[in-house]
């Protein structure tokens, strides 16, 4: 029971951290500050993955998002004009409409979730403690999660795995082509 309290404390702490930083990302007038807070959002989401026992995914999140995508965005920010200070057109038009649309989506999702008990399978237990689930899911150690990932990727999900690698290759070649051809003008 005590461990459950710790779990929930971590959950609410990280959730508040993520939402706070996400709000800064969409409201800050400085593009560079948006980027730094986006990085914190990525780290917080990795923490939420950890709370669900997704150990490998948390590592991937930190490596790819916090390490890779953030650096990519940093390059884009630095290569365009509006690095620091107020970008001319960074903020913002139609704030009222944005709030209305976002609130409508939120209400829609709440309505959906409040009725989604119907869709749950009969075996689902809503009141199981999260820590008990965590312990039951992690077979022995961190290797359990990673091993399960590798086995699933190379057996059941082999075809999507290969397709994704082709997609990555196409994306790399496409990005180089797009970014270079326009420069040789």
């Amino acid at each position, binding site marked *: 029971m005590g461990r459950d309290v710790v779990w929930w404390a971590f959950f609410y702490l990280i959730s508040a951290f993520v939402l706070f930083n*996400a709000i800064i990302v969409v409201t800050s007038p400085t593009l560079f500050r948006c980027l730094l807070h986006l990085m914190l959002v990525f780290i917080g989401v990795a923490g939420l993955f950890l709370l669900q026992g997704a150990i490998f995914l948390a590592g991937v999140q930190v490596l790819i998002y916090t390490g890779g995508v953030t650096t990519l*965005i940093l390059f884009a920010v630095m290569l365009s004009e509006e690095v620091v200070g107020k*970008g001319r057109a960074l903020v913002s038009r139609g704030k009222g409409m944005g709030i209305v649309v976002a609130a409508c989506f939120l209400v829609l999702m709440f309505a959906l979730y409040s009725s989604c008990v119907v869709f749950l399978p009969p075996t689902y237990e809503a009141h199981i403690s999260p820590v008990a689930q965590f312990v039951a899911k992690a077979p022995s150690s961190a290797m359990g999660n990673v091993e*399960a*990932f590798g086995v699933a990727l190379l057996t059941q999900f082999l075809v999507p795995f290969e397709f994704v690698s082709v997609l990555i290759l196409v994306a790399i070649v496409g990005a180089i082509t*797009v970014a270079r051809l326009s420069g040789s003008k």
Partner: protein
Amino acid sequence: MISSMMHYLILSAMLFSIGIYGILTRRNAIAILMCIELMLNAVNLNFVAIGAHLTPNQITGQLFAAFVITVAAAEACIGFALIIAIYRNFEKVSVDDINIMRW
């Protein structure tokens, strides 16, 4: 007492609507792509939470999240290459100024 899965779903809905707000109000193309990354993270949270609670003995939810991360990385790669190309040609990254394809 709501289950921890429901907490994850609500958190992810909040994160997604923050992303929607950002996409609708930002005018800088780079900021819009950052908001898209926010929304993709919300989707990943949903995948992981639902997968962990409904199929606790399988890893399918986490695998889908991993595929989403991969495709998101490819999307960010292409998106920012396009932004760089547009910036080189137009000297600006504001989506209101880039209306050459609007008739």
